[in-house]
């Protein structure tokens, strides 16, 4: 579903991504792990068509991100560290607005919004303004917004940062149900989350892919993931 080939991206003299290549097939949740400045956010911006690579290319569900960005946007959902909601809209208005932007409407949109409100437990605050919601509530709305159009590819850039344990747990539970038939790219610093949700580990360091490993259910826990990541990063430093 995601195919990245020799992608390079620089900002002035700073190389953010250098010849990065990997594939993520359907039904896979790939964790993207790496220190700050490793290129995770740049990679996510490229995949979500907010940016274009200097060289190489990325293909999402057979659509090149540079050639057919409109088609890529229609099949992609994304959640970033900041929920980034309109403070003066309610969660329900937010979902209606983005539904319209994704080309949805009528009874099917209303039904989808009702489903998400139930699944993500948004009911009690869906008529309050986003600006007065807690961070956990906002992030749940952001998740609902990202999956509203049932995208095939979901990009999650540290979505649990700043969330309490309960909110983070709810989000992971929702994502583990949502993963079926889709592919998810999940950037995080939390090894526990990687071991719980992901079946693939991609480690970025200094803009390069330094580790690409399948995670089998019986081989890793949070500690195992941590060891693999640290070993890979030590390797690039040395």
């Amino acid at each position, binding site marked *: 579903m995601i195919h990245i080939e020799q992608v390079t991206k620089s900002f002035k003299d700073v190389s953010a991504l250098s010849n990065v290549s990997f594939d993520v097939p359907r039904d896979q949740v790939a964790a993207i792990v790496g220190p700050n400045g490793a290129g995770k956010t740049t990679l996510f911006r490229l995949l979500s068509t907010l940016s274009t690579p200097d060289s190489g290319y990325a293909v999402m569900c057979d659509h090149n991100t540079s050639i057919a960005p409109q088609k890529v946007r*229609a099949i992609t959902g*994304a959640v*970033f560290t900041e929920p*980034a909601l309109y403070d*003066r*809209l309610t969660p329900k208005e937010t979902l209606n*607005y*983005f539904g*319209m932007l*994704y080309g949805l409407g009528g009874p099917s949109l209303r039904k989808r919004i009702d489903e998400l409100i139930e699944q993500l437990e948004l009911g009690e605050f869906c008529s309050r303004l986003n600006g007065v919601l807690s961070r956990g509530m906002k992030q749940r709305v952001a998740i609902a917004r990202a999956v509203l159009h049932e995208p095939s590819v979901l990009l999650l850039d540290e979505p649990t940062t700043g969330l309490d344990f309960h909110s983070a747990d709810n989000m992971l539970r929702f994502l583990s149900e949502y993963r079926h038939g889709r592919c998810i790219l999940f950037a995080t610093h939390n090894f526990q989350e990687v071991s719980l949700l992901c079946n693939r580990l991609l480690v970025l360091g200094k803009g390069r892919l330094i580790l690409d490993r399948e995670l089998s259910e019986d081989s890793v826990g949070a500690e195992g993931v941590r060891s693999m990541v640290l070993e890979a990063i030590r390797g690039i430093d040395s």
Partner: protein
Amino acid sequence: MRVILGVMKKELLETIRDRRTLAISVFIPIMLMPIMMTAFIYFTQDKESDIKVVVSGPPGTEAVIKALDVHPLKLVKSNDPIANLRGGKLEAVARVIPQGRKDRFKVTIFHTADATSLQASEIISARVDKLGRQIASSELSSTVKDASVLEPIDLNLTRVDMDRQSSLAGVFLSLIVLIWATVGAMYPAADVTAGEKERQTLESLLMTPARDLQVILGKFASVYVVSLLTLGLAIMSTYATVIIGDVKALIIHVPDNVISVALFSILAILVTTALITVTEMLASAFAKSFRESQSYLTPIFMLIIVPGILPAVVPKISFNQALYYIPFISHALVINELSAGLINIRNIGLLIITSIGLTALFLWITMKLLRDEGVYRRI
């Protein structure tokens, strides 16, 4: 069209819920314009009615004093009139001295170089001259058969407005349009561009399959509506104050072609407001935060207002046809002409074509800037 309307509806909903924008766009024009107009009425009427002068003279000079005690002159008393004249408390001093026999006087007028003082001295001179002719006419009427001998020239002054003269009402209307359309669009324009970047909501918006043109047109439409609303309220509250306060200087004379003038005026206002709206959106699109956008919008405000004042300051400027190609100056010139009942299709056409052309160009640049990573991330 559905996306454009959807974006516009959402932006307007957010604007309605923003107290700051509501205050700027609705309450300030409604409150401020009557206050400004009332101040205008107060100062202009005060200037017309009170030209304070001292007229002194011994018994026997009452006829002269009475002839001078007519509006706009106001006779006041003073212990030291010359000192008061020097201090600006009086506009003129007239001393009337009898000259030996009945109805013979010497009048000495003291004034300063101040414009009002000069005006006062001219009024006194004219009144004294008129009184002198009345006395002479009365004394000679028994001996002169033809009264016209005493006034061989019958002088009449009649004011005729020049075709291109900048009327006060026209200048006022064009300034109201430029100021309030700019003020009305300022906050919403910054909010839909720089505000979206600051809140990081622009990323979510740009990641949807909605076309950039649809998004920018929806945003433009919402800012345009708020700008027109602000302008409409400002014009209505100004008009109400002009009518209630009976400000004759600002009451536009209704020409015979009133419907055509009104339609062309509305058209001129609509295209100018569109250009103002998109100019502010473009300036804000360069900013990364709402606050930063304010520092760009302040000079933009001046850039829009100053050309609008030029035709009032330099009336002859309107004779230069090249100025009709320059935005905002052309607006002021065309509104001036329309206020005087003049419809110049070429000038109106130039205003419409340049405004629509620039609006489209600026809208396109704004759209590109919102997607431009270099501007977006300052890299």
